[in-house]
């Protein structure tokens, strides 16, 4: 790159100009980015480091773990209000001169997350040099951003600063943006003050005359109870009489309304005595019923308990009415210790208190947050709240770790924070450990640094519009996230999905499983000291991304599934790349295993480390590879098949050890099984439609809209305000890469969900980490984190 200095030749001292040239040239080719990722964007940032994009060509490949050694801060991802003080602190702890790149729409402006917990642009708290657009930006875009920064550096005048003379510039000098003065948070641009955002008039609780109300739909799906479920209903009726009322109809599982004062008895009965026994607390959440259309039929709040039985793979839902305005219920932490976090979450989000909870405080929002976001009266948009400023980020610091780990007076254990910014926490998560020497004597976690308010967003986006948000819930699983949401909606509205669409969905979900497990393989090995696998596995991952891109046009977040099917048919020539991939992948996997599986260092770091017993795993609702590594052969794809998984021939690997090594083995074996599924799906891909022809709900094919008026009308309605889904509720869970991700959708007969709840696998998995980590060495915590392989947007949602 040529050196084009902007000054007029002759005016500036020649010596200083020469020094400028040398210093700038050196700086532009030796940038040291900080190892700092906020969310999805960081995955693309990591891809830039690896072979295909090869950041090393630009002299910036050495990522530093500490701000003291870095001079480039790439804000890759969503800046949350809870983590903003940390971002600011890290920035200020970097040495001079320093530069900042804002990567991705979220960091640039809040992007699609105009929601209470997200800062609408990092430039409100930090100065920014280069903005990279995209959601997430492709790796090429990052390279382009870096080249722009290099150009900018070349135009700086550092020599005067270096020699302590007047003037000169270096590093970031752009001022921080102030809302209403130098920037406008309104995506429409300035001048729209007082004009409500498009669509806000139909968003609860202030909707009037929504046209969806006038539309007719068939009734929601209605299931017949199986023999076992009828027996259960009878035994409950015999034992509790009036206190347990079965729901009139249900779309997915037996549902009962329980009187609040008998709840604990009923739950105890279901857990210990019922036939079958419901051992897992699958989910616990609440609904604020205050803006229902038929308000008189509902209580103020409804608590929803969902239990799962391993014995015959069935679920049951219990609902408890809680009166407002200061709702209170009983805690069930003595029956299920795992209820601890669920109840804290409900308290945090709804302000619903639990009597008898050992430690009822906020879980996700910052400790000093005002209000309870999932109440209908709470504003959902950040742009409806006061702007988050530099002063806020300076003032509102995360709570001191000493408050989490209560110590007796005089106890002098070392208390250490691991995270939110740490290479090995795999995202924004804060572990607080009390150490005796290197031994972890106590551990607590602070989550919510990655809370994107997805459940709140679900209440304002139409049923179709919400699909892109699901992709970002577990950003390594891409379209696999679409599936449970769509299955829940399809269950509720009783939509039949064509076979071809089912196969395409399975094909893509398994490709994303491979994608995740490859990254997990690499990062876990990296956490245990092996750097090499990253560079190998990302090679295969790029091949998967190529296939995904060929089929869907997207990489990380294709958002490609639709209600009733997928967005479009498979493109021409889709099969060859998949066949090629299948041919090479097994050999490659063998190669990767040769580096790690029998590696003595890796074994020493992971064998008999982070032990989780079978009982604990069942009790705490742990799912996914972590559960299967504790000796439970439980996989929803086999136990409760969905989307046509029953048609595929594959095994469910499980291991007895329950340690980090077993979790690693499960994932490696799952890659082989996924490959088998992909092979079968590609070979047996059925012909037919790729999306249902029930145009009442799905997006009609363009060709049909040109031929008949019905399709045209549905196309218009479904593309604009979205389809109406009949009043009711449904829960569907799928086995995504980390475990059981379930969507509980509640419809009030509108064009958007009344309540949307995500049962996140990592919420349960992360809650169980203290069981694995207590008593281990500090270094083992890192191995445990890598082996659990959680992801923060899924934990915090």
């Amino acid at each position, binding site marked *: 790159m040529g050196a084009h200095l902007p000054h007029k030749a002759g005016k500036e001292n020649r010596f200083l100009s020469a020094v400028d040239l040398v210093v700038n040239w050196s700086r532009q080719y030796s940038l040291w980015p900080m190892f700092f990722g906020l969310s999805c964007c960081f995955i693309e940032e990591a891809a830039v480091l690896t072979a295909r994009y090869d950041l090393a060509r630009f002299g910036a490949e050495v990522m530093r773990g500490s701000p003291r050694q870095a001079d480039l801060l790439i804000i890759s991802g969503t800046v949350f209000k809870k983590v903003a003080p940390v971002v600011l602190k890290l920035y200020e702890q970097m040495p001079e001169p320093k530069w900042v790149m804002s990567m991705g729409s979220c960091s640039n402006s809040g992007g699609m997350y105009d929601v209470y917990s997200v800062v609408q642009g990092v430039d409100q708290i930090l100065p920014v040099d280069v903005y990279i657009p995209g959601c997430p930006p492709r790796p090429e875009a990052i390279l382009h951003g870096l080249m722009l920064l290099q150009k900018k550096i070349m135009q700086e005048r550092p020599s005067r600063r270096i020699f302590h003379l007047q003037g000169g510039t270096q590093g970031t000098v752009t001022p921080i943006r102030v809302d209403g003065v130098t920037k406008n948070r309104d995506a429409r641009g300035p001048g729209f003050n007082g004009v409500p955002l498009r669509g806000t008039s139909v968003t609860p609780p202030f909707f009037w005359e929504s046209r969806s109300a006038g539309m007719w739909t068939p009734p929601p799906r209605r299931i017949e109870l199986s023999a076992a479920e009828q027996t259960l209903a009878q035994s409950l009726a015999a034992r509790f009489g009036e206190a347990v009322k079965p729901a009139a109809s249900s779309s997915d599982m037996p549902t009962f309304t329980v009187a609040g004062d008998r709840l604990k008895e009923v739950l105890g009965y279901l857990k210990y005595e019922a036939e079958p026994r419901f051992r897992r607390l699958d989910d616990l959440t609440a609904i604020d019923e205050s803006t229902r259309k038929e308000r008189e039929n509902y209580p103020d709040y409804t608590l929803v308990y969902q239990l799962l039985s391993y014995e015959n793979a069935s679920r049951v839902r219990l609902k408890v009415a809680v009166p407002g305005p200061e709702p209170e219920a009983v805690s069930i932490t003595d029956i299920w210790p795992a209820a601890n976090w669920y109840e804290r979450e409900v308290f945090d989000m709804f302000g619903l208190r639990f009597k008898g909870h050992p430690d009822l405080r906020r879980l996700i929002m910052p400790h000093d947050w005002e209000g309870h976001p999932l109440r209908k009266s709470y504003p959902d948009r950040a742009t409806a709240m006061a702007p988050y400023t530099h002063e806020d980020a300076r003032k509102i610091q995360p709570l001191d770790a000493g408050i989490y780990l209560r110590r007796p007076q005089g106890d002098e*254990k070392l208390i250490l924070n691991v*995270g939110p910014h*740490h290479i090995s926490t795999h995202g924004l998560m804060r572990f607080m450990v009390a150490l005796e020497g290197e031994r972890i004597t106590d551990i607590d976690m602070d989550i919510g640094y990655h809370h994107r308010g997805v459940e709140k967003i679900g209440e304002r986006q139409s049923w179709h519009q919400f699909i892109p948000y699901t992709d970002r819930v577990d950003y390594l699983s891409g379209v696999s996230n679409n599936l449970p949401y769509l299955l829940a909606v399809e269950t509720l509205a009783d939509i039949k999905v064509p076979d071809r669409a089912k196969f395409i969905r399975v094909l893509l979900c398994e490709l994303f499983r491979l994608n995740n497990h490859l990254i997990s393989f690499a990062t876990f090995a990296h956490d245990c000291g092996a750097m090499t696998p990253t560079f190998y596995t990302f090679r295969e991952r790029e091949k998967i991304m190529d296939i995904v891109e060929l089929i869907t046009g997207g990489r990380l977040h294709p958002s490609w599934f639709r209600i009733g099917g997928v967005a479009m048919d498979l493109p021409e020539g889709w099969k060859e790349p998949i066949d090629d991939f299948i041919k090479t992948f097994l050999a490659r996997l063998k190669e990767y295993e040769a580096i790690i599986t029998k590696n003595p260092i890796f074994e020493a770091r992971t064998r008999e480390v982070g032990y989780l017993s079978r009982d604990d795993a069942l009790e705490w609702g742990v799912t996914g590879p972590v559960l299967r590594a504790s000796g439970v052969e439980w996989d929803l794809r086999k136990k409760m098949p969905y989307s046509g998984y029953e048609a595929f021939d594959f095994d469910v690997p499980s291991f007895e050890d329950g340690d980090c090594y077993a979790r690693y083995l499960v994932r490696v074996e799952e890659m082989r099984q996924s490959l088998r599924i992909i092979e079968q799906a590609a070979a047996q891909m059925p012909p037919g439609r790729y999306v249902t022809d029930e145009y009442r709900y799905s997006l009609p094919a363009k060709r049909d809209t040109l031929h008949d008026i019905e399709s045209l009308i549905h196309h218009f309605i479904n593309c604009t305000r979205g389809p109406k889904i009949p009043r009711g509720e449904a829960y569907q869970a799928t086995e995504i890469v980390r475990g059981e991700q379930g969507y509980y959708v509640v419809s009030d007969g509108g064009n958007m969900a009344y309540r949307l709840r995500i049962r996140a696998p990592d919420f349960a998995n992360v809650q169980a980490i203290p069981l694995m980590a207590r008593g281990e060495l500090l270094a083992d915590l890192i191995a445990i984190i890598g082996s659990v392989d959680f992801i923060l947007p899924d934990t915090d949602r």
Partner: protein
Amino acid sequence: MEFSPVTANLSPWEPGVFSLAVYAALVAGLLCLILFLTVWLGDKKDTPEKLSPYECGIIPTGLSRLHVPVPFYLVATFFLIFDVEAAFIFAWAIAFRPLGWAGWLRISFFIIVLLVSLLYLWEKGALEWAPTYRIRPAKKTVS
């Protein structure tokens, strides 16, 4: 090969020591220069945030002056003891030929005493890092 003591080259009475002195002076000068340049050329903005310790972006809890647990002290002590003894063994290895079999026997006795004391420490559990906090159930190993 004729045995020649290594120390011959380092005799203080030969002019070789002059070049050593020059070398030392150069090293010291260079160090001073580098330290001065980094202090003078570097751009410094000392804010309270910047001067605060880095702990993953969080304000640290408590002081760093803690009671260090005993195992750290033990490890340090053992290291010192065995390290100093290594110094004797190196010295003997250098003078291996002049000392002959007598030297070999003496150092062997020395090493055996060391080994016995190491085994004693091992047996006493002094090499255990800390008491085990939890007893794990016996498990099958994965094939």
